[in-house]
C-alpha cells in the first residue's frame, strides 16, 4: 500500500533522513520506532504532505503521494497527534465529525456517526456528544482524538507519539483500545513512538530508525531474536526491561518533586538509584536539575506495578 523509495530529507545543511526504502502493507499495524531526533516523525508527516521529501518518492496505492490532491488526501487520512488537539470551541460531536463536515455530510448523518464512534470508546453519546473538550480528562480527550481520526473511515491512520503524554495506566488502556479498533476495522496504521515496549506491543512489524537511517524492519519476534546491529540490540535489550529506566520512573507518581535540595545526591541512572536507596529508607536525589524524594516502599510499589503485569 505504501512504498518509500530512496527517500531523503535535507533541511539546509542538516540531513534528517537518507536512503529510506520501506514497504507497508494494507491493513498492517506498522510502527516507526527510534530515539527522539531520529527522523521518524518526518517520515510519518510525508504521508499526508505535511512535509515533502527533498529526495526520492513515496507511493500510496501505486501513485506518488505528491501527485495526490492535498486536501483529498488529508480528508481520507486519519491523524492523531501527541496532544489530543481537539478544537476547544467545538463540542465533541463537532470535533469528531469535522472532516465529515468538510466533506459536506448532512448534520443528521454526522450526529449518528459521532454517537457510534463515542460508543466505540465507551463514552456515552447522551452525556458526551454536546460537551466541550475542557470538560474531559486527558485520557478521555485522547480517546476522542482517536475516534476523530476514524470518522471518515480512512484506509490509512497516522499516529504521532499519540500516547506519549499519557501516564502508564492510561497509556496501556489506550494501547488496548487501538489494538481492538485495529482488529475490528483493519485500517493501515502507521504509528510513531520512541518507546520500544510500546513498539513491541503494538506493531505487526516494526521499523527501527536511528540518526536518519533505517536500521532494521521486521516483526517484534525477528527484531528481538535477530537484531541487525548493536544499536538495535541495545535499544531492545530484553535483559533490561523498559521500566529499568530513571526517566521512565520519574514520569510516574511514585517519586515526588521537592524544592529543598539539601542532602540530595546527584543520580545518573536507575542503577545509581538502587544503590543509594539501599542505604536509606527515604532518598532525596537530583536528576537534571530537579530534586525528587522517593521511599523504598515507593520503589517496590513501582516495580510491582511495572514488572508484575508483563
Amino acid at each position, binding site marked *: 500500500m505504501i512504498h518509500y523509495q530512496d527517500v531523503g530529507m535535507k533541511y539546509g545543511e542538516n540531513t534528517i533522513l537518507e536512503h529510506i526504502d520501506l514497504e507497508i502493507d494494507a491493513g498492517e499495524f506498522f510502527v516507526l520506532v527510534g530515539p527522539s531526533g531520529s527522523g521518524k516523525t518526518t517520515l510519518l508527516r510525508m504521508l*499526508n504532505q*505535511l512535509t515533502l521529501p527533498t529526495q526520492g518518492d513515496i507511493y500510496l496505492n501505486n501513485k506518488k503521494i505528491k501527485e495526490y490532491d*492535498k*486536501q*483529498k*488526501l*488529508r*480528508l*481520507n*487520512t486519519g*491523524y492523531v*497527534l501527541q*496532544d489530543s*488537539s481537539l*478544537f*476547544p*470551541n*467545538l463540542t465533541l460531536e*463537532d470535533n469528531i465529525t*469535522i*472532516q465529515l*463536515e*468538510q466533506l459536506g455530510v448532512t448534520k443528521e448523518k454526522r450526529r449518528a456517526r459521532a454517537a457510534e464512534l463515542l460508543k466505540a470508546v465507551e463514552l456515552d453519546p447522551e452525556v458526551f456528544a454536546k460537551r466541550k473538550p475542557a470538560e474531559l480528562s486527558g485520557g478521555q480527550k485522547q480517546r476522542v482524538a482517536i475516534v476523530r481520526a476514524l470518522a471518515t473511515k480512512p484506509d490509512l491512520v497516522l499516529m504521532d507519539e499519540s500516547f506519549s503524554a499519557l501516564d502508564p495506566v492510561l497509556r496501556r488502556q489506550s494501547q488496548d483500545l487501538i489494538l481492538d479498533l485495529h482488529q475490528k476495522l483493519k485500517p493501515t496504521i502507521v504509528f510513531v513512538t520512541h518507546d520500544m515496549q510500546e513498539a513491541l506491543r503494538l506493531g505487526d512489524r516494526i521499523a527501527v530508525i536511528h540518526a536518519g537511517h533505517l536500521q532494521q524492519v521486521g516483526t517484534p519476534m525477528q527484531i528481538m531474536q535477530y537484531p541487525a546491529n548493536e544499536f538495535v540490540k541495545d535499544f531492545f535489550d530484553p535483559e533490561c526491561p523498559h521500566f529499568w529506566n530513571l526517566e521512565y520512573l520519574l514520569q510516574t507518581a511514585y517519586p515526588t518533586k521537592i524544592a529543598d535540595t539539601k542532602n540530595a545526591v546527584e543520580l545518573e541512572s536507575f542503577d545509581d538509584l538502587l544503590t543509594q536507596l539501599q542505604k536509606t529508607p527515604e532518598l532525596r536525589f537530583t536528576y537534571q536539575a530537579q530534586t525528587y524524594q522517593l521511599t523504598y516502599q515507593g520503589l517496590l510499589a513501582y516495580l510491582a506495578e511495572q514488572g508484575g503485569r508483563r
Partner: protein
Amino acid sequence: MAKLIETLSVQRTEILQALGQHLAISLISLVIAILIAVPLAISLRDRPFLGEAGLQVAGIIQTIPSLALLGLLIPLVGIGTVPAVIALTLYAIMPIYQNTYAGLKNVDPNLKEAAQAFGLSRFKQLQRLEFPLALPLILSGIRIALVMVIGTATLAAFIGAGGLGSYIMLGIQQNNNDYLLIGGILSAALAFICSGLLKFIGKNSRRIYVTLAFLALLGAGVGGVKVYETLQPKPVKVVIAGKLGSEPEILMNMYKELIEQADPKAEVTLKPNFGGTTFLFKALQKGQVDIYPEFTGTVLEALVDHDKKTPSDPKETYTLAQKQLSKQYDLRYLKPMAYQNGYDLAVTKEFSQKYNVTKLSDLARVNAKIHAGFDPDFSNQEDGYLGLKQAYDLDFGKVSVMEPALRYQAIAQKKVNLVDGYTTDPQVRQYDLVVLKDDKNFSHRIKGHH
C-alpha cells in the same frame, strides 16, 4: 439642579434628537469600521509583513488630532454626517484591526496544524477554529472602538453633524453648565450603556448572531428609506449655516423665514453651531452651504488676501471685502444688514458708578485700577486693544488673555473688571454690564453675508 431639570423637560425633543443623531453616527461608523477592519485582519493574518504594516498605518491615523482630520475632510467630502462618519470610522478601525489580528495570531499553532492535517479548507479553518477562538478579543476591540467613537462623536458638532456635541459646544459658548452637563453626561452614559450591552451580547454566540441579523435588517431598512427619499422629486433646497452662538442662530432663522415666505416650496435647512470660520468657509466654497453670515472685518483679515489696511469707514470695508471675495473665490457678498456689530469694552455697573466711567475716554483716568479680560485676538489686533491704546491713551494695570467664552464668566465672578465683547452679546444684559461708548468713533465691524 432645578434649572437643569427644567432645561431637560423643555428641550426634551431636541435632546432626544441629538441623542439619536449621536447614536446613529457612532453605530454607522462602528459597523463600517468592523466591515473594513475584520476582513482586512483576516486576509493579512498569514502575511506578517503586511499585517504589521497595517498595524502601523492604523496607529498613525490614530495620532491625527480629530479636529484636524475633520478639517481635512471638508474640502473632500463637505460637511455634515459624511465627514464625521469617515473620521470616526478611521479612528475605530485601529482597535478592531489590532485585536482581530492579535486574536487570530494567538491561536495555538498545534491546533492550526491539526486543522491543516485534517484537510480542512482555508475557509473551514477560519470558520471552525481561528475565528471562534479570536472572537472574544475581536469583541473587546469593538467595545474599545465603540466607547472611543461615542466620545469622539461629540466633535462632529463642529462640522454640522449634530449630536450631543452641540450641547457641549453651546454650553461652552454660552457659559451654560446645564448644556455642558446634558452633553457630557449623556454621551458618557451612552458609551457606558453601549459597552455594557456589547459585553452582554458577546457572552454567547447566539446573541451575537441575533444582533448581527438585527443590524443587517436595520441597515437594509435605513438604506431603503434613503433610496426612497432620493427618488422623490426635490424642491429647491437652501442650506444656511452659522457660527456658534445665539446671534448667528437668530440671523439664520430670520433668513429661513424670509426665504420660506418668498418661496413656500423652498426647503431650507439650518446647520447651526459651526466650530470655526475655516470650517464654514470651506463648506461654502464646496457648495455644501449656500449662505452664512460673516463679518466684513473677518473677510478682510482672515479669508481674502489684500494689501490695503482695513478701512475705518464701514462702507469702504464692505466694498473692498465684496470685490475681493468675488475676485478670489467667485462668491457673492450680500449687502450688510441694518445693524452693526463690533468690538466693545464693558465694565460692571458697580465699577461704572464707583469711578463714573461711561465712555472709553473716561478710562484713561482709572488705568491703574483696571484688570482686563481679553480674548486673544482682541488683545493683539490693530483694530483691538493695540489701536484703542493709542486712540484713548490707555494702559491698563493688568491684562489677562483668556478664551472668549470665559470672559463673561470671569467678569461675573469679579475676577476681572473689564472685558471686550461684541455689542450684540446677550451677556451684557445677563450680567448687568455697562458698555462703554466709543466716543471717538474708533472701531466698526459690520455684519455681512454671502
